[in-house]
């Protein structure tokens, strides 16, 4: 799968969970890898690019989660 497409799928998953359930990195890797028939490492690489770009961020609320950054 094209990496940009994969990044979009990851972002949409996090976006859909916002306000409902906080997702851990492993939740995203498992879900996207299973849904798209990909290796977890491939999903991880795409997720890392999103985090490095600041499109998604790590947060801590009694555990570490991946979320969309708040609007400034």
């Amino acid at each position, binding site marked *: 799968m094209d990496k940009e497409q994969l990044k979009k799928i990851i972002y949409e998953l996090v976006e859909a969970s916002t306000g409902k359930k906080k997702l851990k*990195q492993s939740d995203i890797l498992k879900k996207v890898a299973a849904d798209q028939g990909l290796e977890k490492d491939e999903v991880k690489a795409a997720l890392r690019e999103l985090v490095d770009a600041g499109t998604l961020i790590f947060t801590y609320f009694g555990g*570490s989660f991946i979320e969309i950054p708040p609007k400034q």
Partner: protein
Amino acid sequence: MSKKYATPLLDELKKGAFPSFVKEMEMAAERSDMAADLLGLVELSYKEKVTHWKHGGIVGVRGYGGGVIGRYSDIPDKFPGVAHFHTVRVNSPSGFYYTSDAIKEICDIWDKYGSGLTNVHGSTGDLVLLGTRTESLEPIFAELSSRGWDLGGSGSAMRTPSCCVGKSRCEWANIDSMAITNDITHHFQDEMHRPAFPYKFKFKVAGCAVDCIASIARADMSIIGTWKGDIRIDQTEVKNCETKGMNIQTEVIDMCPTGCMQWDGKQLKIDNSNCNRCMNCIARMPKALRPGTEQGATLLLGSKAPIVTGALMSWVIVPFIKMEPPYEEFYELVGKIWEWWDENGKNRERIGELIERLSFPRFLKEVGLEPVAAMVKEPRRDPFFFWSEEDIIKK
């Protein structure tokens, strides 16, 4: 210089023989508004018996999920200097060795961007810098990383591994604890900086069973140096110990937890097949006794301090493993353990708690470790038996 706030309760902590953190904070307050307001806020907390810190949130540097612990005050208007008071964890070098130049470098950066307060080292093993604002985090990270430093671990990630001084200063080390710690740090950069676990995971590496860093009580995985084969004995030096006033019977023989030693006044005998390698005798008579020559490590899993649930001690999962570069067997096992934890663990469940919940036999079976009698729960106390009826019949 006059104090910004009256602090009668904190002043009590300056009395007594021991160095006081209050004195240090007062010195820092002479040139740092953050430190001055910190004194005021802590005094108020002591008076009201309630914390004024809020923990966690969205604080960090781009690309990393750890290394910064978010702290905000719940009364920022009253103490604006500590409205933000984030902690920065800096990855410590193996064995905590620094040059004076390295310490000056860190302190200069911290004076520029932070409160100037540090509690080198925190209980995490990191070099801990206390108190900075959100907008200073990226500049601090840029300055640290441009000089070869990196942030440590926090959150649901691998934490900064730590170790004893090992072979650099200790003749008892059976493994190169500093080299192993350094290798683990580099090997698991992703696991340290991008939290992906159910909860925290700590490695601590001790060169021998004396375990100066208390890895057996503080690390999710304890790597403790040990040996195979017989303890090396120099009978002349044993005799010298007695000549110099040591009571070998009471100080060594009677202290042996397995009772595997004998001393007749002339010769020391050890039944090595019953030795559990606790190191007591070797530590008592370092010139007379030395570990065997085939050296490696015992891997233990599951200890933790009481946070979400009670304290646990480590369990032996691998009685003996060679710990030599490139540590392939070790890394393969760690990968399997983490995969099992990821599949089965709940949020904020440590690996030791998960093993207790699902059982040790299940853990061994699913991780692919063959049960052996040397897998001891809380070593030196309780042997751990888990033979099934089927196993007994088969053997």
